[in-house]
């Protein structure tokens, strides 16, 4: 483990998009300037985060203390393998998301506010990724809620307001639970640091430990959309597509799951969790959520709501991986952060493109869409197959290591759950693909434009290109997992950290 290196880069990454947001809010009146600011901030952040990759892979840890908020408690940033992985995923995805949003929101009102909060959201996400202690993580966690709220209700109107209110009630109550848990941890452990592998080891007060576990897991579980804390997610579909993409793939839900990881791996520590045995119940809950969400997804008609329910089930894959407490499962959990992100964002981009080009939002309207928007549907198909778990795609990697992890943990039963979930996924993705490719488009004569590319021509390249990039990434993650520059290697480094294993991954 390299020595703790004092480095400004973590704070710089944060500052870049925060100042970007500020500038957009202050001077972002003209579309062109706004575009340059947004994309510029995104690329700059991407460069800074990636610049830390080689160092972290070599075991280096970057740290920076910002403010002494309370005696013994400071706002502190620390970049370790797990944190960098999450920051990597979000900053990489933010560039296509920004470009896509610029195209999608053209001509819509309130763009200045939209893009400044859009930039602020990802700044806070990186803040969560680099938090050294639970307090810093909580500060950015609450800031994330405050920043995403205006995005969720961007459309205005009653439905948006009601969804916004429900979103606030759930996330703020979750925040209060986390705060309570944090106080108990500070009281018992005397510190909230996430740099070690377990600060509660020396505590034997079983009841308090259970209370901490329940409080923190429920608090983070709200954003990780574990049932029964999930119902804000489908309701938040009323937001514009780039926001849903941001919410689901990049920022909000991932923050919840990342928080759970920090709690299980850094607050409790793997060995202590095994001894306490609370993780088993979390696993059961995750398993239930995977299946229940998929069953509900079957009955969805609106494409975006289907995506929402699919996210809820996919997130619980990660929660299940966390609860198994074995190296392989942890690896699956971390890598699924990226797999689910890229696949889900591709699907959202596709849904947005379909809605923008053809105005269709319901599944039964998607007949023959493949011919109209071949590129869009091709990437949608790649993402769909990845979720089903077809080999050579990202989803397969997760399922592979997850089952390996389940076996390692000796709870083979989850293999059944994974298989069942694969089937259910197939049950709701394949009909869409079949309908899109093999069914004639409804009333094609009326549409008149039979040329395959006509439909996608209406889409601006700024929407198509990010779509294809993400789909390509899903493929890349699936095929070239072992390749050096791929996130897989970083995930392994994170696992070694969590389990304190010196050598390469299992």
């Amino acid at each position: 483990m390299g020595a703790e290196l004092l480095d400004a880069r973590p704070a710089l990454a944060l500052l870049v998009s925060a100042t970007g947001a500020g500038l957009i809010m202050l001077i972002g009146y003209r579309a062109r300037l706004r575009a340059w600011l947004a994309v510029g901030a995104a690329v700059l952040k991407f460069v800074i985060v990636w610049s830390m990759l080689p160092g972290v892979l070599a075991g280096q840890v970057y740290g920076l203390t910002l403010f002494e908020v309370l005696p013994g408690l400071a706002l502190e940033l620390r970049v370790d393998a797990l944190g960098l992985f999450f920051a990597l995923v979000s900053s990489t995805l933010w560039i296509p998301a920004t470009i896509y949003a610029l195209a999608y929101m053209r001509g819509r009102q309130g763009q200045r506010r939209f893009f400044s909060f859009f930039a602020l959201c990802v700044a806070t996400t990186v803040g969560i990724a680099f938090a050294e202690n639970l307090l810093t993580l909580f500060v950015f966690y609450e800031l994330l809620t405050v920043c995403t709220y205006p995005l969720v209700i961007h459309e205005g109107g009653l439905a948006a307001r009601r969804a916004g209110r429900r979103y606030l009630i759930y996330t703020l109550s979750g925040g209060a639970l986390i705060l309570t848990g944090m106080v108990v941890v500070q009281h018992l452990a005397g510190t909230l640091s996430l740099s070690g592998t377990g600060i509660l080891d020396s505590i034997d007060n079983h009841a308090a430990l259970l209370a901490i576990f329940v409080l923190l897991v429920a608090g983070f579980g709200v954003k990780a959309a574990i049932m029964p804390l999930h119902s804000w997610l489908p309701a938040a579909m009323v937001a514009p597509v780039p926001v849903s993409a941001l919410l689901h793939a990049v920022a909000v839900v991932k923050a919840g799951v990342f928080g759970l990881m920090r709690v299980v791996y850094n607050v409790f520590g793997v060995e202590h969790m095994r001894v306490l045995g609370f993780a088993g119940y979390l696993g059961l809950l995750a398993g239930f959520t995977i299946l229940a969400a998929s069953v509900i997804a079957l009955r969805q008609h609106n494409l975006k709501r289907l995506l929402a329910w699919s996210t809820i089930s996919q997130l619980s894959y990660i929660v299940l991986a966390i609860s198994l407490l074995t190296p392989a499962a942890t690896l699956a959990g971390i890598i699924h952060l990226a797999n689910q992100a890229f696949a889900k964002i591709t699907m959202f981009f596709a849904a947005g493109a379909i809605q923008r080009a053809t105005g269709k939002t319901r599944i039964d309207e998607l007949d023959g869409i493949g011919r109209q928007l071949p590129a869009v549907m091709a990437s949608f198909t790649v993402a769909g197959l990845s979720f089903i778990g077809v080999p050579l795609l990202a989803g397969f990697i997760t399922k592979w290591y997850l089952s390996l992890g389940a076996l390692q943990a000796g709870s083979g039963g989850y293999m059944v759950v994974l298989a069942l979930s694969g089937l259910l996924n197939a049950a709701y993705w394949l009909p869409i693909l079949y309908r899109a490719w093999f069914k004639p488009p409804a009333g094609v004569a009326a549409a008149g434009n039979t040329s395959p590319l006509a439909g996608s021509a209406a889409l601006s390249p700024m929407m198509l290109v990010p779509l294809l990039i993400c789909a390509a990434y899903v493929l890349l993650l699936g095929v070239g997992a072992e390749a050096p520059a791929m996130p897989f290697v970083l995930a392994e480094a994170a696992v070694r950290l969590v389990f304190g294993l010196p050598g390469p991954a299992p």
Partner: protein
Amino acid sequence: MRALAAFADWPHLLPALFLLPLAGAALLPALLRTRPAVAWASALAVALATTMLAVLALVRLLGDGDYGYAMAGWAPPLGIELRYDRLSAITLLTGALVSLALLFARREMTGAGRRQAVLYCSLVLILLGGMNGFVITADLFNLFVFMELLSLPAYALVAMSPARGAALAALKYLLPGAVSSLLVLFGIGVLHALTGSLNMADVAVRLTPGGPSPATVLALVLISVGLLVKAALFPLHFWLPDAHSAAPGPVSALLSGLVVKMGVVGVVRMFDVFGPALGGAMQAFENLLLILGVLAILTGALAALVQHELKRMLAWSTVANIGYIFVGLGLAGSAAVSGGIAHVFYHGLTKAGLFLAAAALVERTGLHDIDDLRGLGHRMPLAATALSAGLIAVAGVPPTAGFVGKWQIALGALEAGRPELLVVVLGGALLALAYGMRVINALFFRAPVSDQVVTASEAPASMLVPSVLLVALALAGGLSGARVIEFILPFAESLGGR
């Protein structure tokens, strides 16, 4: 810094903290009766000078710890003694907030309220002198005199708003206030009868042999009930919502930010006076404060949720935050007490900023109702943002000002082995966030309904500077939490002769 320290060593610095504002107040009506603008400017200068003196007093404290001053050269218990300790550092806050409130009132002073400007400025300076004196005196009867000296102008300032209900609200504030002062005097009389002396330290020493005799308990009850009415702790808070919402903008900022805190400072002083003598009975008193504090948090937060008027909602929020302070004091652990006292500083800062921002909105549009203020965020962006940031700070979202106190109190609750209090302390913060978001939602994310909002224009600089400055301090205040808590800890540990 060295020059500052040298000047801070002037032995006669302490009494100037209240003599300067009172001198200003006496001179204003005589000198500047017909020149309101000059009167306003000189009052502001006096307030700023007093703040500078407070800084010097603090520098001396940091140099060589608590220090005292014998008035007229007579050593206690013959004469009156002043004592500057870590709690007296609140004089920094009084000077700063009064200066900012005066700055805020500039437009009113040189505009419609011109005729009343001189009286207004004098009363505000007397209020400042009274507060500074109240916080640094170590003599019981002198405490009573300064309490009157700060309460009287407070009653009048509430009634100085031309609004129809202001006079009645002021009277509803005056009558309980007068009775509470009387009870404090009665308690001081009993203590004098028991010990023959009026100096707090001397009384504490001479009370101890008597132990918890019914007379001592009676004195504690009389004085604490009086002070708790001034501090508006539940159930003695009934007068606050009317008074703080009817008062003019800057005055309600001073009332909620400072005047209410004087009651808290008084009770903290009484810990030292009665602590050694009562011992066990003091434990019961602290538990009572704890229970009343919890009830105050719940009533304050719930009432604030259902209020329609913005300033009345902020007034109820003060009731809740006073509850937090007394929960901290009631828990009596050094973490909880330091949290409670830190909250006195931080809530004063935040709530004053909030009331000034709210006043900027209300006085520019003439609308009091939250629903009428919908959509104002776009017409008055700076003032509305200050209000929203203040609401988030008062709710105690980390790392803002409200968080430091609440965190320490929550920790203190655990240390005292009362985890159930966590629900109240952090639940209250959640409720505060709820009514805060309700206002933010109305200001920024709802379409305007009233035409005053559509035609409203941004508040003038004299109103914006104080509110934005205070709210910024509140947001950043949380970041300096460690130093503030470490500053207060020695005082918290030595409280009540523990």
